């Protein structure tokens, strides 16, 4: 019964969000009827309805209501309770509902945060997006569908890969980022319609983009960390289509953050910012669709569920084409009289945007290329290998890093004095020599990628610190206050790049066979296979191997497991990882070859933690910056 109530809440939310989305239309026909005052109460209602709907679905999981098809397919009676709750977003239907709920939360936050809503139709645009997504859920992906009259005793189970802490928080945070990009999109479209794309619009939009980007960064970071320890391969990024689908919107959002600065401060690039906010949201929609339609495995997979695929493609086309048509008719912005030279902040940001957007498009192209190929060559399938993305991103990363540093010292319009760049070059060179010497002493070898990452690390770190410098001491603190967020985020990229370069240079990996009591030496560390035991848990049984690792200055034990989940008939390895600041020791259990003889994968990963540390700094910096911009604009 309660399940039907949940579905009813969802339908009600669909109906009233549709009514709310009609406000601008009514207004355009009759200038006297301004119904914008209705938008806020409707958003509150839609939020409450979707909240109730989601709560009921979570409740159904908690009481093991296997008469609900979605619960039966993604949960199991033996699943620990916290995984039962997170199983709510373990598959397509539930994650859509979560997505919708989060978009409603953003909309609610928008009407709470924005002061003057009397003529604002942004909320109405948001309701339109909400409406289409609820309609999609209701008509093609209903999570409340019953399995009657035969109710299964036991659920199928949640995919063992997803029975994990990081997975409980990864989707909500990532979706907050995805859905958050709807806010700048809606603000751009509504401002286009009302001919109010101006500097004030840029000022109002920027903190929203920053906040969404913060969540997107955090979501991607957690996903990468999860893949690292859960998949058992020790990789932190695979250029998988699902990852690209999150990375490309991130690139667009970062470009938007920077172009909005120019729009706000100088009045340039306003059309471009509007276009970017459309592009960023389109990429976020495209990402959702690519991941959710199953089209990426094959064009054929798309045909397996044509209803969903066509519906999603319809929504995507509607919003992208619709907003682009509005854009082409309404972009009447005048370019400001003030020009800029090649040594200006404007020009630096322009290059930054060109790089980010082209990189994003090239990555998306690689992701979609197998589909294009399959369509042209009549079903012939291909895959685009990792090296494609690796060779693509390196020149862009170098360009963006140098650009970041140089643009920090540029002024608006024209830069008069560039002598500080000379000082930066000298400091950087000395610091770089120091770091290279240390690396050589520690690792006894240097590689292209470790040297490159050290160059980028040095210039980004020193460049950002030096840019805080002011002539007068009294301005120093004010400068630090205003630039905390952006400086942290920029320095985060330095740590990130260093981690990436060192992991690819100084990592060791061996696949080996060991019998009990045997020792294997890898890069001066002794891995001793002590014992292996069988273990039984609530919802799985496991082989558990124990290692003693002796490195130069300490020794510790590592446990690695191979689990068998009977309810879903799946095998899962749990890697044994010893994280330290400099190195991760990483052991994965393979298979039993003979009595007490097992295969293993043993790895040492250098500076891998710095990748996520850098990404976390970017997240924190972005949030700080968002908060400061929210405050600043209300002053």
């Amino acid at each position, binding site marked *: 019964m309660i399940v039907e109530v949940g579905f009813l809440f969802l339908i009600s939310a669909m109906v009233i969000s549709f009514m709310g989305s009609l406000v601008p239309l009514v207004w355009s026909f009759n200038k006297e009827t301004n119904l914008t005052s209705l938008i806020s109460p409707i958003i509150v209602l839609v939020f409450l309805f979707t909240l109730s709907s989601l709560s009921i679905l979570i409740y159904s999981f908690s009481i093991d209501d296997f008469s609900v098809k979605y619960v039966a397919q993604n949960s199991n009676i033996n699943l620990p309770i916290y995984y039962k709750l997170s199983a709510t977003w373990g598959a397509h239907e539930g994650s859509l509902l979560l997505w919708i709920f989060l978009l409603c939360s953003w909309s609610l936050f928008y009407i709470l945060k924005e002061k003057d809503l009397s003529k604002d139709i942004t909320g109405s645009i948001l309701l339109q997006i909400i409406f289409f997504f609820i309609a999609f859920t209701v008509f093609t992906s209903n999570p409340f569908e019953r399995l009657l009259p035969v109710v299964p005793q036991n659920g199928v189970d949640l995919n063992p890969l997803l029975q994990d802490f990081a997975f409980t928080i990864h989707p909500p945070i990532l979706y907050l980022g995805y859905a958050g990009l709807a806010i700048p999109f809606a603000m751009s479209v509504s401002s286009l319609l009302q001919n109010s794309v101006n500097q004030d619009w840029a000022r109002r939009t920027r903190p929203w983009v920053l906040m969404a980007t913060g969540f997107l960064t955090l979501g991607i970071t957690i996903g990468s960390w999860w893949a690292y320890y859960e998949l058992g391969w020790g990789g932190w990024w695979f250029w998988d289509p699902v990852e690209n689908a999150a990375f490309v919107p991130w690139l667009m959002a970062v470009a938007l953050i920077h172009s909005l600065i120019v729009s706000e401060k100088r009045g340039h690039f306003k059309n471009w910012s509007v276009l970017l906010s459309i592009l960023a949201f389109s990429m976020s929609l495209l990402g959702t669709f690519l991941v959710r339609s199953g089209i990426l495995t094959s064009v054929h997979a798309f045909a397996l569920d044509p209803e969903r695929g066509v519906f999603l493609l319809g929504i995507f086309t509607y919003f992208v084409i619709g907003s682009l048509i509005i854009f082409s008719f309404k972009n009447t912005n005048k370019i400001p009289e003030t020009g800029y030279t090649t040594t200006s902040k404007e020009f630096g940001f322009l290059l930054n945007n060109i790089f980010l957007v082209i990189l994003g*498009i090239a990555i998306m192209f*690689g992701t979609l290329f197998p589909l294009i190929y399959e369509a042209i060559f009549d079903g012939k*399938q291909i*895959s685009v290998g990792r090296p*494609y993305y690796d060779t693509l991103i390196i020149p862009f990363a170098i360009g963006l890093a140098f650009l970041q540093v140089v643009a920090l010292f540029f002024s608006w319009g024209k830069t008069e004095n560039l002598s500080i760049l000379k000082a930066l070059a000298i400091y950087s060179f000395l610091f770089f020599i120091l770091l290279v010497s240390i690396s050589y002493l520690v690792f006894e070898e240097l590689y292209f990628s470790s040297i490159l990452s050290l160059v980028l690390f040095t210039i980004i770190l020193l460049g950002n610190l030096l840019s805080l410098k002011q002539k007068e001491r009294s301005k120093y603190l004010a400068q630090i206050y205003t630039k905390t967020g952006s400086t942290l985020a920029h320095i985060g990229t330095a740590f990130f790049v260093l981690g990436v370069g060192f992991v690819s240079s100084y990592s060791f990996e061996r696949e080996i066979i060991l019998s009990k009591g045997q020792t294997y030496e890898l890069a001066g560390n002794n891995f001793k296979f002590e014992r292996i035991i069988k273990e039984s848990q609530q919802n799985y049984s496991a082989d558990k191997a124990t290692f003693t690792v002796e490195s130069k200055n300490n020794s510790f034990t590592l446990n690695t497991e191979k689990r068998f989940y009977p309810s879903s008939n799946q095998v899962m390895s749990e890697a044994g990882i010893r994280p330290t600041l400099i190195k991760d020791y990483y052991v994965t259990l393979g298979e039993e*070859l003979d009595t007490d003889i097992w*295969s293993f994968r043993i790895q040492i990963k250098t500076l891998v933690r710095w990748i996520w540390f850098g990404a976390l700094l970017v997240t924190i910096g972005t949030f700080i910056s968002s908060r400061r911009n929210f405050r600043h604009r209300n002053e």
Partner: protein
Amino acid sequence: MHPLRKQRLITFLVIFFAISIAILLVVRGLSSNLNLFYTPTELKNSSEIKGINIRAGGMVLKDSVVKSKTSLEVQFQITDYENNLLVKYSGVLPDLFSEDAGVVVQGNLAKDGSFQATEVLAKHDENYMPPEVANALKKDDS
């Protein structure tokens, strides 16, 4: 030249330059990093694809997996239910690798017609079946 025009010209040149580099990288990247996908039947009938890096997919044939007791060498047959292909691999197999399940292998075709795999990819879904195999099965049914 008028400053505004000069500015536009420079902007245009930069965009042009950046796009050219990107296209160069994309074309070069795609021409050397594409892995074509074949079924056992296609591999049997084709003679030109020996030696290059390709992917093959099918279902792991029941009782065909032979593991060494002293090394990481393993061999197994994959099938599209028309033809079989012998795959040789050295390394730890992924968790989801099992008999009667779908698998995609990457590597190249050896002279003796067997497939030397450098990578074995089992998808993160126990019900996964390479689309070609699924298609082949569908054709059999009809």
